[in-house]
């Protein structure tokens, strides 16, 4: 069964001096959120989100879900997973890197087992597959004892 998810954005004016709004999303979970080129391409976000931050949010979420699934299938349901994704954007070039990290609390699992499950989720979660053209997707996984 296919799941469709939708978002709408309004942009006013040109790229450099104009600005936009993520007006709404199908779930109603967030919006409106302001976006602008400056918030996207300058070092500081200026308190605004950007496509790259949303991609980071999507990837960190997808990775967490895939890892919880993989761990549970292997008989080690996680107590807690703390994941993050950092997306590097070079204006004019594109997205050059996604750095995934995870700290997990998983009763009964050793570090090697956790590392293997995290690596599997890094490679196979749907967002990783959709972003397979990104030159570098790194993983830093550690298990809380």
């Amino acid at each position, binding site marked *: 069964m296919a799941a469709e998810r939708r978002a709408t954005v309004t942009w006013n004016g040109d790229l450099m001096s104009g600005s936009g709004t993520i007006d709404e999303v199908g779930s109603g979970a967030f919006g409106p959120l302001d976006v602008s080129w400056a918030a996207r391409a300058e070092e500081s*976000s200026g308190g605004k989100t950007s496509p790259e*931050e949303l991609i*980071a*949010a999507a990837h960190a979420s997808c990775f967490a879900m895939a890892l919880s699934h993989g761990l549970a299938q292997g008989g080690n349901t996680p107590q807690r997973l703390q994941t993050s994704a950092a*997306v590097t954007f070079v204006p004019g070039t594109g997205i050059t890197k996604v750095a995934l990290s995870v700290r997990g609390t998983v009763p009964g699992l050793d570090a090697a087992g956790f590392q293997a499950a995290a690596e599997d989720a890094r490679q196979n979660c749907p967002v990783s597959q959709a972003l397979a*053209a990104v030159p570098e997707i790194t993983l830093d996984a550690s298990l809380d004892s």
Partner: protein
Amino acid sequence: MPRVVRAASVGWDGSLSRGSGVVNAMSSGTFELPIDLPSRIAEKAGKTSPEELLAAAHAGCYATSLAGEIARAGGTVERLDVMCTVTLDEVEGKGHLIVSSELDVQARAEGIDEAGLERAARSADEGCTFSALIRASARVDVRATLES
């Protein structure tokens, strides 16, 4: 060229089917949203999902790209409305994959005609970082119309 890093984090508790998480926009602090599996593949129940976040990312990326292309073609953008729909589907032998991202655009702009917009919309798709990336594994469709 500046190197820009944007980050987000998720805290997830429990298994995939019964657990739940919260996704946090670390760079901007603009959102903190609950997520779970049913909201991703079945009823949305007011919760976001990775695919909805990608739809928001793609719509935002494409809107900025098209604003640039219309200006390059000599037009002046008054307003762009971009709707993006991302589809997650189960593909035989491959599990769940993001199979498509569809963009619907309504443009209000001066100094550009339908044919010019069509060209700008294509260039914007080629220039949008996210379109280029996701096209490696998913279909990207763009429909653009000019509002008079």
